[in-house]
């Protein structure tokens, strides 16, 4: 099966139909299972931390927010003692902390998925589409988990100094900013272009003006042929010239 989408106009029109459909699918059907996957994966990751035990868990509260009960990082023990129990004797230790975080943030970390699906499905359809969809969705799932971890680290930093150096604080703040404001949108596009060879080929390489050429059916292979056999010609002509017809 192959549906040709040879122009950005066709891609845009298909996307304008597919994007609302994918957003509806994500919001109405897939969001809860996706959030559950992120929650369970995050809990398993937290349990792998040193000093984690049975109390380590992530639960969804009645309002929808997440309560993350996790082992207190060692560098924060003194600060936590000062903050939570200044009058306690040194023998009393704070070993766990609970963070309550808004569900909206975790939803945001999965929002790249419908955009990614819409881009991939609006691009030329081929057997590569299925592979790109599966790989991209899995990678975005891992990214959602990493984004959640970074968000937790930043929230901790807001409460207690996890990092003290100015450079460290700046890096954590900047990463948090990218994590919440840029990554959810950029990741979908970068991954779609990276994983979908046909889309990448049509965006970045010169297309023949006439009818479809045989090379178009196998963009990645055609690129390799161009890179080796027609190297001299490519250099002479300039430009990104994969798949150009004779």
């Amino acid at each position, binding site marked *: 099966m192959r549906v040709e989408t040879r122009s950005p106009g066709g891609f845009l029109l298909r996307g304008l139909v597919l994007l609302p459909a994918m957003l509806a699918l994500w919001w109405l059907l897939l969001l809860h299972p996706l959030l559950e996957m992120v929650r369970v994966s995050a809990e398993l990751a937290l349990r792998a931390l040193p000093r984690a035990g049975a109390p380590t868990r992530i639960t969804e509260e009645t309002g929808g927010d997440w309560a993350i009960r996790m082992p207190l990082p060692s560098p924060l023990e003194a600060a936590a003692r000062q903050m939570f129990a200044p009058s306690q004797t040194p023998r009393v230790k704070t070993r766990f902390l609970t963070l309550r975080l808004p569900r909206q943030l975790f939803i945001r970390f999965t929002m790249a998925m419908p955009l990614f699906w819409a881009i991939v499905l609006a691009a030329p359809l081929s057997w590569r589409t299925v592979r790109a969809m599966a790989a991209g969705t899995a990678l975005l799932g891992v990214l959602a988990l990493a984004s959640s971890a970074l968000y937790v680290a930043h929230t901790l930093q807001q409460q207690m100094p996890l990092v003290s150096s100015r450079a460290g604080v700046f890096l954590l703040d900047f990463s948090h900013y990218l994590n919440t404001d840029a990554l959810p949108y950029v990741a979908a596009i970068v991954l779609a272009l990276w994983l979908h060879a046909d889309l990448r080929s049509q965006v970045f390489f010169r297309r023949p003006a006439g009818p479809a050429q045989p090379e178009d059916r196998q963009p990645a292979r055609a690129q390799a042929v161009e890179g080796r056999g027609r190297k001299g010609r490519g250099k002479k002509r*300039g*430009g990104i*010239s994969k798949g150009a017809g004779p």
Partner: protein
Amino acid sequence: MKSSLPSPATPLRRFLVLFLLLCLAGFGLLQWPVVDRVATQFSALLVTVSAGLIRLFGGQVVNQQTILRSVTNGFSVRMMNGCNGVHVSVLWAAAVLAFPAPWRRKASGLAAGMVVIHSLNLVRFLVLFYVGQAQSAWFDFLHVYAAESLMMFVTLALFWFWAQTVLRSASGLDAG
């Protein structure tokens, strides 16, 4: 005529590295207080333009800095830095500057893309202002997820269109 386009062996890797570096630089620049203040002034300008457009079509609104408020029902929205299109502008600029094209093409692409992106963003802001008054339950979904995703999708299609224009033009130069 000498072209600034590189050989076909490296462009994608070069594009990706440059794009990510320029994105980091652009988003880093937005964190600088001076640029942040300029971006806030830009938001205020967009709100003023939005209010002007609404009044032109008979709507009753007041605007104060980055806040737009309906006179009839009191609904108000504040245009934050993420809502003023600067993030998408950074991505657009990074993509266009990273793409192997002559500087003249990059300059015209940057300017044309910014006009399209900010026009679309203005429409998005106005639609959200009315959706917020009519269906407040839908406001967050449209604001945070749908409208942003749509902006990104359109920007990708725009980039595809511009890249093909550049490549066709390079092809024409070569043929000539």
